[in-house]
């Protein structure tokens, strides 16, 4: 099964089905993102697994634009499973995103393929 992995194709298909899937190494149990055909370092087999969608902002920037184009946010998010990914935090102003903020994944689609953004996680 794992030797059938087509990283980009599978990832985007899952997103199209509304599922944010990452990978887990069968042997070590470590999680992997971005998707690959094998685990880094060990070369071990990977399986797809649905991400919890929860994470913490590790770094953030506001990309300034010439008005009327809006400023945009780019973040690195540490997923609760371990891997770090690039993304964007929606639902608040770009400059209000802070390091350490708890966020939850959401799948959106703009001009093309679906992709994962994050929104602030409401405090429990």
């Amino acid at each position, binding site marked *: 099964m794992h030797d059938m992995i087509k990283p*980009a194709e599978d*990832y*985007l298909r899952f997103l199209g089905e509304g599922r944010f899937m990452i990978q887990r190494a069968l042997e070590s149990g470590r999680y992997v*993102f*971005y*998707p690959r055909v094998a685990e880094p370092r060990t070369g071990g087999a990977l399986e797809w697994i649905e991400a919890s969608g929860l994470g913490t902002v*590790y*770094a*953030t*920037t*506001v*990309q*300034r634009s010439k008005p009327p184009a809006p400023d*945009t946010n*780019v*973040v*690195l998010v540490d997923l609760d499973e371990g891997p*770090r*990914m*690039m*993304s*964007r935090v929606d639902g608040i102003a770009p*400059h209000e995103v802070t*390091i*350490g903020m708890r966020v939850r994944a959401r799948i959106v689609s*703009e001009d*093309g*393929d679906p*992709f994962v953004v994050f929104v602030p996680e409401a405090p429990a």
Partner: protein
Amino acid sequence: MSEAFPRGRTAIVATATHAIGEAPGLAAMDLLAQASIKALAKVGMTPADVDGLFAQLPVDFVSGLSVSEYMGIQPRITDNNRTGGSAFQTYVIAAALALDAGLCDVALIAYGSTQRSAPGMAPGKPDPFEGAYKARYPMSAYALAASRHMHDYGTTRDQLAEVAVAARQWANLNPEAYARGPLSIDDVLAARMVCDPLSLRDCCLVTDGAAAIVMTRADRAKDLCARPAYVLGGAAATSHNRIAAMPDLTTTSAVESGKRAFAQAGYAPSDMDVLQLYDAFTINPILFLEDLGYCAKGEGGAFVSGGRIAPGGALPVNTNGGGLSCVHPGMYGLFALAEASDQLMGVAGERQVAGVDLSLAHGNGMLLSSQATIILGSQATL
């Protein structure tokens, strides 16, 4: 096993820069050739004397072949390794090994770019995992690193601005530098924001320009150059490509490249008389000063404050004005090497640091991804 780098057995014997600023109507290759011919002429050579070619152009993936063809070189060794702006430091390592092994006798390392007059990189396929976020590379990646450094260590925008101001003060001593004139901390802070926390003045220039250096074995170097820049050590390290895959955004693999290069050279960081640290953004020299061992992790911002790395400061850094105020035609690594060599050769004019016997040129590639450190020394250090 310890690394058997051929310490002091090869040297940089000539350097040249060309067309720093704007060179409309010329191609990157034209500039590369002019810089190369200029450097070779300083040691009485022509392109036909070159038998080891280490060359790169911004959008030419077979530059080793096209540069050979254009200049009429039939190299025995060809290398156009692409690790980003640090590639030129990796060429010095490869050239030192090849020269020492007798695989070539005259190595030419060259680069040219018209990024200002004719911008454009080869359009790649969008990254399926990151393309949607429309990150503005490379600025956004360095902004993310700066944001994390500020969060973890309390580094301030004023401290970042110190790096830009020091670079400008050095540039004001360099007639070839593209950006000259007064620049204050307040000017940097008040400049248009690009990617928070970086303003326009925290970002390197976009210029045209070319550079070339010539290397030979040490026995020949003495006859070619009054003060050859002997290659005492060279080491490279890679930690990632995408910024999201960088293990810790506040620590680069310069920790490793520096440690290995200093071990090869047999000198400590504090022995260096002058440093060239690839400054694509103001956060870079702060990271590299920490990672190469000039101050503890997190203290880089305080370290550069009060003009410490500016003219008249305790530690001269980026004495040509750097990528921030002298030249940055897409990649800067070779300009750092040329300036490190010129300082050692004692030919840096008004910006010459007195009594340079040890000179370091550190290259950075892509998004803090590749780090490569070269240590050069005078005859007295052999």
